[in-house]
């Protein structure tokens, strides 16, 4: 008697459980489908398109299939765009992350006055849109603009620098812009992670005579390592896709000397003779670069 009752009960519970599981599937299906349609399917489609050539409306398999990839190696603008993008990456990401760690550890000090104010100020650039800040920086650094005028008035410069028309200075302006826009963003990650570090560790270290640099190097950075890794991967991902700044701040110039890969891909898609196959091939290179660099960073970040 009791056996059958419990068996019945079990059966009923099982079916209820199945019902719930089904509800779960129903809840997650729309989002899952969308990600497959908007992300995974196009990714494979891009790989196929990268082996094609011709007008967007009449794409045909290219011969040999890897023709677009071959062409890249001879395309000076593409090589320049890769060089530019990697230059931004190698210079900007470390500067930004180091500054962010320093700001976060300074602001984590509970004896500091005006902590909230400092944090708000340093985080504020995140409220600015990428196009908006590109316009602001373009105006600031234009030849007869404020930066030159003020620097000359202060006697720092004897004559105006043509910031946006010099290959090196123009890159520097983009890097300054990026560091300005994203340092506070990364700082917020670190500050949030520091909240889970027991503050008494710092107090104990201070009693033991550790100065702030030692506290930073021996306590904060080792404990923050996982989150530093995440921010490094995210910044790398973002920098490899840089577009708004290249288009609006320097317009890729002078003479493609600051153009990014995404900007060049866009130009390839929207010219008089658009080449979707080549654009797809170049975009696939970005995908591979993102994957490879993330894997390298994870390996390095895990070992240390």
């Amino acid at each position, binding site marked *: 008697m009791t056996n059958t009752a419990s068996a019945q009960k079990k059966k009923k519970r099982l079916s209820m459980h199945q019902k719930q599981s089904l509800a779960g599937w129903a809840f997650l299906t729309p989002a899952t489908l969308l990600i497959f349609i908007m992300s995974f399917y196009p*990714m494979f489609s891009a790989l196929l398109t990268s082996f094609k050539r011709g007008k967007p409306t009449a794409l045909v398999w290219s011969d040999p299939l890897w023709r677009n990839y071959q062409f890249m190696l001879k395309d000076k603008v593409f090589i320049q765009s890769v060089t530019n993008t990697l230059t931004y990456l190698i210079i900007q990401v470390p500067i930004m992350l180091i500054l962010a760690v320093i700001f976060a550890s300074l602001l984590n000090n509970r004896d500091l006055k005006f902590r909230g104010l400092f944090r708000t100020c340093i985080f504020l650039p995140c409220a600015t849109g990428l196009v908006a800040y590109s316009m602001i920086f373009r*105006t600031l650094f234009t030849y007869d603009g404020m930066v030159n005028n003020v620097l000359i008035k202060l006697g720092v410069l004897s004559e105006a620098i043509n910031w946006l028309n010099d290959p090196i200075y123009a890159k520097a302006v983009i890097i300054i812009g990026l560091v300005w826009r994203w340092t506070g963003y990364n700082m917020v990650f670190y500050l949030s992670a520091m909240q889970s570090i027991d503050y008494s560790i710092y107090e104990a270290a201070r009693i033991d005579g550790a100065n702030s640099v030692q506290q930073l190097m021996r306590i904060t950075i080792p404990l923050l390592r996982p989150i530093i890794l995440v921010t490094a991967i995210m910044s790398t991902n973002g920098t490899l896709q840089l577009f708004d700044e290249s288009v609006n701040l320097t317009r890729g110039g002078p003479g493609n000397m600051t153009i990014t890969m995404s900007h060049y891909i866009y130009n390839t898609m929207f010219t008089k003779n658009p080449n979707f196959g080549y654009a797809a091939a170049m975009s696939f290179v970005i995908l591979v670069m993102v994957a490879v660099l993330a894997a390298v960073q994870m390996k390095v970040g895990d070992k240390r």
Partner: protein
Amino acid sequence: MREGAVRKHVTRTIMYLFLIIASLISVFPLYWSFISAFNNTQQILGGWMLPSTHLFENLQHLFEQHNVMRALKNSFATTILQTLIALAVSSIAGYGFEIYHDKAKDTVMAILMLAMMVPFVAVLVPLFQMFTKAKLINTWAAFILPSIATPFLIMYFRNSARSFPRDTLEAARIDGLNEFQIFVRMFIPMMKPTYASAATITFMNAWNAYLWPKVVMQTNEAITMPMLVANTMGGYVIDYGVVMAAVTICSLPTVIIFFCLQKSFTNAVAGAVK
């Protein structure tokens, strides 16, 4: 002892100076763009640091030369639509992945997380082809569809569903609520702060989106605010007062959200990795 005290004092002064300079540099470009909306080209380029009296003139020129109202309408409509739909679709998915999790669902979730590593530009060409074929170019649907379901939002809601008490869930089931009702009547009200955070960051991202809108919103009727801002610098003679007025209008919504909902925004930024 005294020497130590002096050194401590010096270190503190340097620290405060460093933070003050960093804060000034952080705030300056935005402050300057706001006050520059009140100034003319000559004052802007010359480095005038205070607002003058040209705001009305700048706005008048801006509205004469560009259809600001239409761009604002497009931006607000697409941004609000995207925020609402993204929150609905992604939050229920995150809830589904966590509350009903089993091996199969965990696997699907792990696959979706891989999409985080797919750079948007890598799917740009096929997406553009897809939307062209579907005749959706220059529509709001084109703007929002690729960003409705994001791995980030799903993960964010999945993490917050972890703190949804099982007792509440069971009690609601005994009370006869079905699974969808539990989500709508129990989960959503309980997770208001999570929704607020997710909404702020989604709004900010959608408002500032540029590459994708530039690709699919091609006609003058369809352009959004960031594109209009970019257009203000076209032509041979640039009226920087007009540029800064446009920049200010474009920045206002996100700056207001930043100051009013800073806590939500901060939580959303940092919440990605918790």
